[in-house]
């Protein structure tokens, strides 16, 4: 079974010009507008109060909350996330944190960390 070519082959355009096996790199970054689109999508779900993207250290990349609220959440949640990740890894070195949900009486905070160091946080009101 042939595997897709992972490199660009500009030299492929010879007689077989009708059929180059071009594979455009998959790992392109995003743009701020794409990030906004994604945040808007998530925000359109029922009950979602806010969405934040931050780094592991608590620096905000993008947020739908007001700056004061964002700041309040960022520091606290990034620490919580880092701590939770540490706990999981210490208890079992093979394991890693995949998701974190903090449910209170009024809302639920869902935290999706990523190995790359970014964190997506969604705050949802409990119906």
């Amino acid at each position, binding site marked *: 079974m042939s595997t897709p070519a992972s490199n660009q082959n500009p030299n492929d355009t010879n007689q077989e010009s*009708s*059929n180059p096996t071009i594979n455009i790199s998959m790992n*392109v970054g995003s743009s701020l507008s794409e990030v906004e689109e994604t945040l808007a999508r998530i925000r359109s779900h029922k009950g979602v109060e806010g969405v934040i993207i931050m780094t592991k250290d608590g620096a905000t*990349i993008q947020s739908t909350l007001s700056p004061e609220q964002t*700041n309040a959440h960022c*520091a606290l949640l990034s620490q919580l996330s880092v701590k939770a990740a540490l706990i999981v890894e210490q208890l079992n070195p093979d394991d890693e944190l995949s998701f974190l949900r903090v449910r209170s009486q009024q809302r639920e905070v869902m935290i999706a960390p990523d190995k790359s160091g970014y964190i997506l946080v969604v705050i949802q009101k409990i119906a």
Partner: protein
Amino acid sequence: QQPKMDAVASRRAALEDKRRRLEQIKARRNQRGTEQQKQTESSSSENNAASSLDEYIDGLLAAPKPALPTQTDATDSTTPVGKEDVVQKKDETVQKKKQQQEQISTASVVAVAHRPAVETFEMGTQTDDLLPAWGDDDDDKNENDEDNDGTQNDVNEEAEERKIADHENDNNNNKDEVNVEVAELTSDQREVYVQTPKFGQFLHVASKKMEKLLIDTPSVAEYLWNVDYTKERTSEEVKIGADDGAGMVSARAVYQCNEWTSGRKATCIDWSNTYKELLLVGYHQPKSSTTLPLPTPTVDPSTMSASAQLSNMVPNSASMHKGSIAAVTDGLALVWNLALTNRPEHIFTCWSPVIACKFHPTEPHLAIGGCHSGQIVLWDVRAGRLPVQKSALGITSNAAVRGHNYPISALEVTDGGSALVTSDTEGKLNFWSLSNLREPAESLTLSSSNISALSVSADSSSILCGDDNGSLYSIMASSASATSTSARSSKRLQKKFETSDETGHFSMITAIATKNSGGSNRSGQFAKGAAGLVLTCGVDWTTKVWAPAYSESPVLSFLSHSYDYMCDVQWSPTHPCVFATASSNGRLGLWNLASSLEEPLSGDGIRVGGEALNTLRWSGDGRRIAVTSGDELHVLGLTEDVTKVKGEEETQMMENFSSRKLFEP
């Protein structure tokens, strides 16, 4: 070397200073309720204060380890954890970097971590060896992105600032609040992060995860775990009408994404064999496009040079973002996840509307599509939206090109998953090997008109085709080549079913369905019994049952009461007597030949959508049906009434047939 020696000396001086301050902090901490562990920590650090840099490092590496199992107190837990952070990161740096740099970097980390005051920055050298706040990633970043160094170090400093503030505030303020200074990023810095590939990857994966959890319909467990039984509950009974499949349909969901699917008609469905929750759906071009020309080579962007294509970077297949290439592409195939109804799992595009599509039979991350231009394309989930391989376009200046010159009408997997067979509107059939999609392995002209339907028997030794005129053909592998895997003779036995005008279809056959198992045996004949039954349906409002082992005419014909075109029909993969029909009035019909040879289970049909049901596919386990109506994908879960085999239904069905003298099984 000289500046480095100075740096080391100045470091030592700074270190001494800081150790003194650290001892002050420790003293304060000890006042608040001493535990053994803190004393060991402070004593170990005191020890280290006296020795050289190397011993200090060793000491620090050794000290917190005994503290680990005894950590039960949560009050000052941030500091020991912080120490572990430091230790772990030091482990990394010690292993990775060169000896000299090791010492400097670890010293700087230690110095920074114990520095109580935020205001003074006494960092001698700002090198790339500054402990990165993000761990492994920054090794790559520092090597590749030179221009990011400035921002990198800023972030590092700020991050370390915050860690310090952490320690500081913990020591000074009350323990219930977490007061922290967080770094502020400028929008330039944000852009930088956002444009890295890792960010794109994270955004797609994390946002999909979130959306699945946010989706309205929670699972049963979600509903029930937090119920307060003392409160009154108002019960809402939802009555499912017979029209909606009461007793037969247990659940239904609609999959649609306005951004991508609106204005298009879905043309084909395939369930994934490896991931039971994934479906591949191919779509035609949106209504707003101009009418389709016959395939012409000049319009094909694949002939652009590689650099031109590079400049039109297409986003990841997981991204919802349209990107710069063809915001409205002609060909679209979406992979849907049953868990997420408004956002596809993957998005595949190509240059011509997709008429037929299938997941690759053996590689779970590949998908195959057949286009209006006659091309076969191959997509890879890992490789983004555009196809990674495609067959040659039909019309070129060269001599007769193999492959299809006309729109592909059907695509099926044959040979147990190692070959493909495709048909087109010209009447040509092509056999392809999956390792080479550029040209077919074998080619065969069947009829002079559109081959509108294609079905492969389970053991791949016979292929049934239907054409625009209502004729049914069967193609058998000749007995010799049935056993050999490599040499395929193109001399296949073709046979046209001779039916009298009253019994056969009198216009286009839209679908043929053979059974999952059996179908025909190796000697090239159709199987007898229930396994050899074939269903066809057509534009002449009828669905017909054939038993090719016994007769060349259909044995049974069902006329649609509403005189609607029948668009698709398929046997259930698990139940030998049940099949489903898709009609152009938007209704789904369910039949069980063991219970009745005349009437369907579903009466007038189960209402599915407002538009004609183009295509229908049972899931592999026979418990769900996926059916498309316009641009919507409906997945219906069926009740056990329909799906479970009750007793000897197969024999019952055969008895039904023989009692009506239709054929003798």
